[in-house]
């Protein structure tokens, strides 16, 4: 899929582009909402809001910029709104009423965003780089072990690690500029 042209068609208000945008980015947006809010129903509602706002404010989207980063920005605001709403509910709740939901993120929002963006980008790297990065940094395996398991020279494993990290780093450059 040509994301640039998708962005342009989306900004121009094509309904088909909205569907494609959802298909391409709904997992990113939903995962972001779920990680931050830790509540499935709230996350679904928030994700719905993100796409609704995206469509309503599509004219503010710059087709030259990545859609994922733009949607991440909207998601941050919707998530912040949800936490504010929970705080209001908490204040108005009867004394003694148990607070079901956290009124503030368990983890800093930046940490949550990093985790979702990086794991999303990881899944887009493709084999064998994604698997090598997972083995090295999620499973914390030494390079030598990875080399043996994949029957791949140590230098090749290292090369994939360096290149993979560099590509994932780019995701963060784009997202937080």
């Amino acid at each position, binding site marked *: 899929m040509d994301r640039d042209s998708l962005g342009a068609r989306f900004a121009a208000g094509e309904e088909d582009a*909205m*569907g494609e945008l959802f*298909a*391409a980015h*709904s997992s990113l947006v939903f995962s972001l909402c779920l990680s931050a809010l830790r*509540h*499935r*129903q709230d996350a679904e509602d928030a994700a719905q809001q993100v796409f609704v706002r995206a469509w309503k404010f599509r004219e503010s989207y710059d087709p030259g910029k990545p859609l994922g980063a733009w949607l991440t920005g909207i998601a941050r605001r919707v998530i912040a709104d949800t936490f504010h709403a929970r705080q209001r509910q908490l204040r108005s709740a009867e004394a003694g009423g148990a607070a079901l939901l956290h009124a503030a993120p368990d983890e800093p929002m930046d940490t949550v965003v990093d985790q979702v963006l990086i794991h999303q980008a990881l899944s887009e790297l493709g084999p064998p780089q994604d698997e090598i990065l997972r083995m090295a940094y*999620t499973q914390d395996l030494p390079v030598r072990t990875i080399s043996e398991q994949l029957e791949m020279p140590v230098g090749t494993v290292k090369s994939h690690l360096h290149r993979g990290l560099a590509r994932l780093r780019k995701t963060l450059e784009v997202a937080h500029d």
Partner: protein
Amino acid sequence: MTEAQYSDETFTSDGHLTEAALTAAASGSSDDWDGLDQRAAQNHVEQCSLCAAHLGRTKRVITALAAPSPMEAAPEGLWDRVAQELQISSAASSSTALSPHNTGDGIDADKDSNPTDGRFSTVQQLHPQLRPRRSAGARWLTIFAAAAAGVVVGAAAVTWWLQSGQDEQPPSADAPTVVGDAVLEPVASDDLTGQAQMVDRGDGELELRVDLSATADPADGYFEVWLRDEDANRLMSLGAATAESTTLQVPAGIDLSQYPIVDVSHEHFDGDPTHSGTTLAAGPMEGVDE
């Protein structure tokens, strides 16, 4: 340099850190410095804001990778809700939008490996006729929660919303609804916490979605999720929590008001299907007011 070749230079030709040096500096592993000049690299980072910024982002990448994947597919029906709210044709979506199970290790991966099918058939049969009666309107049951085996749930009333509605039309026939929510607090563990949600899948089936702050060390057994009453006189296993996020089917016919506590136990591979007696975390299920 060919694609697969590994460079053991510390600096690139224009004097900045190579990916190898950035990786070594970010990972903090001494192995990674093999053949590289660690001291020179550190000195450079102190003076070069470009490399310092790259190093900072590389550390963030490694930190994010160390966390389990948070990726989940958007739930079925979300696109329809978006399209409906925007009043655009839901057919506008490309076909990929309609296959929400295409990413990562979401909850659906666990459903098939749920080992409990059949195992609790006897328990199911204990309460076949206690299935929440369908009567018009929502029905609230109030259960007073006592201190449960080490968990202080307080004197607060635990309200458990039993779903109902004779019209057998839940809000939407295919929209899952959260009908209960439990915050799991550490009991016999120092720090295992979590959250559990009772979800009406919309087709009459209930499932419990459990999120835990950690997974069991496989060498040391596994975590098992139970529903029980305050005194653990009534106890029903829903299955093993093999991942930080696990979805477990709740047996049909269970009277949830009899099982107001969600309990996570530490079990060993000993073939004994009963509760080990070690509750790591637990919490009362409370109703969600929609």
